[in-house]
């Protein structure tokens, strides 16, 4: 190892650089789209808890237990090798041949499967964070909004959820960062994200140390940017409302 010759240009120039940058783009796209899907599903899972029909709540609870207690790798391989071939042949072919939706080209079926897997997996955790946030809202808030004549959904929307989100936001940011850190698993179904491209550089010129070190730094930078962005986008803590120095 003492004769190892560090050559950062083996990663940061020419074809390897193109691969690396392409990988960064795919990782960011995969993370953002999975986060959006996970958020949507998490809100639906939370809403099921408030449907005045008990089995809806059980469905949400069962769904969450299933997806948070099985490995993401297994889920991703299940969707890709298990569920995808079960789709109707026409749809499968359309997905394989560069699918088009409403005139826009969709990502590959591998990418779509990765977004789907990451989204479903992460939604289970986000939904639990949101539920904890709802439970942190004092019961008096429910009583008050009901006493004003609001029914459940408007009460949730205007009074309970904004407060729940403020309580739940710090752990939710953790979950969004986990989406980024779980995204390399997509290389197991041949999504050419950052880790996939890093492996490719290592196989290409055997500069593994430089390649993996560079990938680590890139993940770190994306993660720092994402957490900064989410902290800015998120709601202010409730007790700091209106206090200029409280943030």
């Amino acid at each position: 190892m003492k004769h190892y010759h560090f050559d950062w240009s083996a990663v940061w120039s020419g074809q390897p650089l193109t691969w690396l940058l392409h990988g960064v783009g795919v990782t960011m796209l995969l993370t953002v789209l999975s986060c959006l899907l996970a958020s949507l599903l998490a809100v639906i899972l939370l809403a099921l808890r408030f449907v005045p029909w008990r089995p809806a709540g059980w469905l949400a609870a069962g769904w969450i237990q299933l997806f948070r207690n099985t490995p993401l790798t297994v889920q991703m391989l299940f969707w890709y090798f298990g569920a995808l071939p079960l789709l109707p042949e026409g749809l499968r072919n359309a997905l394989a041949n560069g699918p088009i939706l409403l005139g826009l080209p969709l990502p590959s079926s591998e990418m779509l499967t990765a977004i789907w897997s990451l989204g479903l997996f992460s939604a289970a955790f986000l939904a639990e964070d949101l539920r904890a946030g709802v439970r942190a809202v004092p019961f008096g808030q429910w009583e008050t909004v009901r006493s004003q004549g609001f029914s459940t959904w408007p009460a949730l929307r205007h009074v309970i959820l904004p407060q729940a989100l403020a309580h739940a936001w710090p752990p939710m940011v953790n979950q969004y960062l986990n989406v980024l850190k779980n995204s390399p698993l997509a290389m197991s179904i041949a999504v050419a994200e950052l880790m996939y491209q890093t492996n490719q550089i290592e196989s290409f010129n055997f500069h593994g140390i430089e390649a993996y070190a560079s990938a680590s730094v890139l993940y770190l930078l994306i993660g720092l940017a994402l957490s900064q962005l989410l902290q800015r986008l998120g709601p202010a803590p409730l007790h700091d409302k209106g206090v200029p120095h409280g943030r």
Partner: protein
Amino acid sequence: MIQFKKVSKQFGTVPVLQDIDLHIATGEVVVICGPSGSGKSTLIRSINRLEEIDAGEILVDGLSVHDPSRSLNALRREIGFLFQQFNLYPHLNVLDNITLAPRRLAGQSRAAAEARAVALLEQVGLSEKQAAFPANLSGGQQQRVAIARALALSPRILLFDEPTSALDPEMVGEVLTVIRQLAHQGITLVVVTHEMGFAREVADRIVFVDKGRILEQATPAAFFRQPSHPRARQFLQQLTSPLHLSEAST
């Protein structure tokens, strides 16, 4: 306006309301008093069904609050409710706290709802606090905003559940002053309170409750001069001289 007919309720095996018969007229100011745990809060919370009763009937405007033809949310919009803990919405500023129900329930425009809110804030003496958040207000200020919020939909009934019990003593006055201004303006007021000075001055009638039963109903003059029920006498003695308590109960 509000009528209780043989209303009973239990928490487990503990009766909290027993055979309550009570009639409150339109525009009347009724103070409900009694020792803690006597069922006062449950009594007024059952009017807008924050608590459900086990037996009997509660009528508002001659119609049972449980009548299937009646919308509970419509009923609640006509009844302003004030909580001991104020319960302002902490994520909304003062103006938005007041305008939430008018805008989202009554379909008022933002401009109309805010104009009314500004007038209400003036009425409770907090014109300069429109943009403040609840966390930056004192308890007395929060409760006055809560009063403005309760008035925003122009309710015909106001229910106050110990509105000053969570306040520091020096803030009790500012809240009671605002409540006094609401009395005898056409709105029916039902106030659960230990503020006997307020009761004496403002109430048309005092209802004394103990162990879930109404033991006495009287005008303030009669009630404070000489309550007829011994339990009410003892209660008043304890309020006026707490140190006398142990002797009074022996």
